[in-house]
């Protein structure tokens, strides 16, 4: 069975503390229970969580949905988005199964990045690494007005979404949309196009603006 790897890169910098980080936690919980109700996603999707504040950490390695345990997320520090991208590449290199004559390799990973601020580290270094690898759909989300849309456009030129504020309702809507995007990807067939793109994802709810 081919696995569908999904990486969530979540900003846990100090500015996320309070309502936003709580919303991220409940959003994650919702995403998880939603995907577990979808037999296709439950079969094939594998989830990893990478958080970034002053540094980046992989809180949960790529894990199947049934055994996935919710990590404890705390908000503090700055926004090491560049490091998060580097770490993502490292994780993907070790975790993604490549095809061999004996083994069916994984699908290309889906990457969802959520941040509420500007990167405070060497972003370009991480970005350069990120661009050398092959990904499935990458979506970046600017949560609230503090996030730099142009930075995110550098990561995923065609799929940046924006939440007006990083409040509970908007983040819930975002995670719900991520959940249905993973569901859709786990059963989509790319028609006519060479590469799968964000237009194959379900339309985002009103809280989410496509940039």
């Amino acid at each position, binding site marked *: *069975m*081919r696995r569908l790897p999904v990486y969530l890169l979540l900003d846990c910098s100090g500015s996320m503390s309070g309502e936003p980080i709580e919303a991220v936690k409940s959003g994650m919980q919702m995403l*998880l*229970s939603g995907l*577990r*109700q979808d*037999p*296709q996603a*439950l*079969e094939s999707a594998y989830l990893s969580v990478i958080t970034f504040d002053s540094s980046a950490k992989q809180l949960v390695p790529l894990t*199947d949905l*049934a*055994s996935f345990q919710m990590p404890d997320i705390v908000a503090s520090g700055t926004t090491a988005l560049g490091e998060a991208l580097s770490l993502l590449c490292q994780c993907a290199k070790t975790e993604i199964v*490549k*095809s*061999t*004559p*004996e*083994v*069916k*390799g*994984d*699908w*290309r990973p889906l990457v969802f990045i959520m941040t509420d601020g500007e990167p405070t580290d060497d972003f370009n270094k991480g970005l350069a690494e990120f661009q050398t690898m092959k990904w499935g759909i990458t979506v970046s989300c600017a949560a609230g007005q503090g996030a730099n849309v142009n930075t995110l456009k550098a990561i995923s030129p065609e799929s940046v979404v924006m939440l007006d504020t990083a409040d509970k309702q908007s983040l819930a809507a975002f995670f719900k949309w991520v959940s*249905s995007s993973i569901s*859709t990807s786990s*059963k*989509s*067939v*790319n*028609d*006519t*196009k*060479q590469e*799968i793109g964000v237009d194959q994802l*379900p*339309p985002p709810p009103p809280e989410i603006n496509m940039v």
Partner: protein
Amino acid sequence: MALVKIKATDGTQITFDDKMIGQGGVKDVYFTEDRRHVVGFFRNKLDVYGKERLEHIVGKYRDSIFSQDGGEYWKNLFCWPEKIVEYNGKTGVLVPTYAQEFFFTHGSSTPVIDIKGREKEGKWFANPWHRYCNLDKREIGDWRSYLNICLLISRAIRRMHAAGLSHSDLSYKNILIDPVSVKACIIDIDGLVVPGKFPPDVVGTPDFIAPEVMQTLKLKISDKSKKIPKRETDMHALAVLIYMYLLCRHPLRGKKVHDMNDENRDEELAMGEKALFVESNKDTSNRYDIKWVKKNEPANRYPYIAPWMDLDKRPYTILGPYISQLVRQAFMDGLHNPSARPSANDWEDAIVRTIDLLQPCQNPKCEQKWFVFDNTTKPICPFCNTVYKGMMPVLNFYSKRGSSFKLDNHRLMVFNGTRIYPWHVNRNVFPNEKLKPDQKKAVAYFQFHNNFWYLVNQSIPKMIDITDNKKIIKPNEHIQLTEGRQILLSEDEGGRLIQVQLVQN
């Protein structure tokens, strides 16, 4: 929540609750006030053809199936749109709510999988890890449940095709099944295809897309060589569906790697141009062994998946002679030759005859409980390897054609509780939606008593024991089954003559 009152295009009033209950691929769905129907609004604006198609679906096509002889029968098998509605510039359809048995009563035995009360999407039952690990044991039925469900699905597709319609996106996503009450229901009928009139708007669902469609997926719609879903692609999807429900594995997903560097391309070739049956005896390059399965499946799922993916222990031939023949036709002869694929009618016919070959497994702990008689003198359950012990009558059917009797390709396995129905008495009666109420009743049964098997006549007017000087066995009389005994069930044209064969093991 707020109730919204709108008028359907036929003028009737519909009230729905504006709290969305679900989002499908193309529609947003809401309950009507009485919750007996749902309204599904298409998110995208429909063009003129789209609207015309809906009008046909709720009108002419619906009538052609439901207003005919046996129409009532289809109400359980199809969740068919009834009316068209318009609201806020969006078009929608009014569809009956799914019957209660299509929602999980117990759901999963794993607490984190919260599906109690959710729809019984077929996929839950097609993957052995879901069926035997994730679902509650009380939800999964036994092997006979799935064989009967396949019969229902074949029958529904046969009816659709007979009306000149194609489903175009047949998959375990668009069929709800209930192995407990043995029911199936085709849903999402608003995408129906009428060849030459309404083209499909989807290519299908992975696992079920026909090779010719997959192969030409990237061609533009204007390209004449692009293959789109139609009746023959439904026939491929139906074959895959039946194979998956009965064997819990995919017929084309094998070990062959077509493109090591590009998974999308590999998938496209494996399901398209290079599609190859995993159990093909002509080309075994896609066949896997259990070692390969171990390498390719997660360790915690392996115990549930391995028995089903053991192609040596559970080859497709355990499905019996009739279904095996169609499996070969679908995945070897017809895989790349759509016109050679078995029709839904072929499947229906083969499954009906296979049901008569079922025998109960004598191992009380057998998970599957039933298996198809393997035509040998030492039948073994292919699921738990228990050898069947005891005396087992097999009845060979002949039928009257003009002045002589000819062998039918149809046998009946006898066990305690086997019954004779009107379609056994006469070959011209077929068990389908056209049966009249009195034709659904058993007319004779079998009983094992003091080491002998007996056939007890209940209501066959003239049962004749040919072997015993054409003695008439009246209703409520019985006859002992002995090797070679010939019993005539009806003297009418098509009437059946039984020849008894006793297997002693």
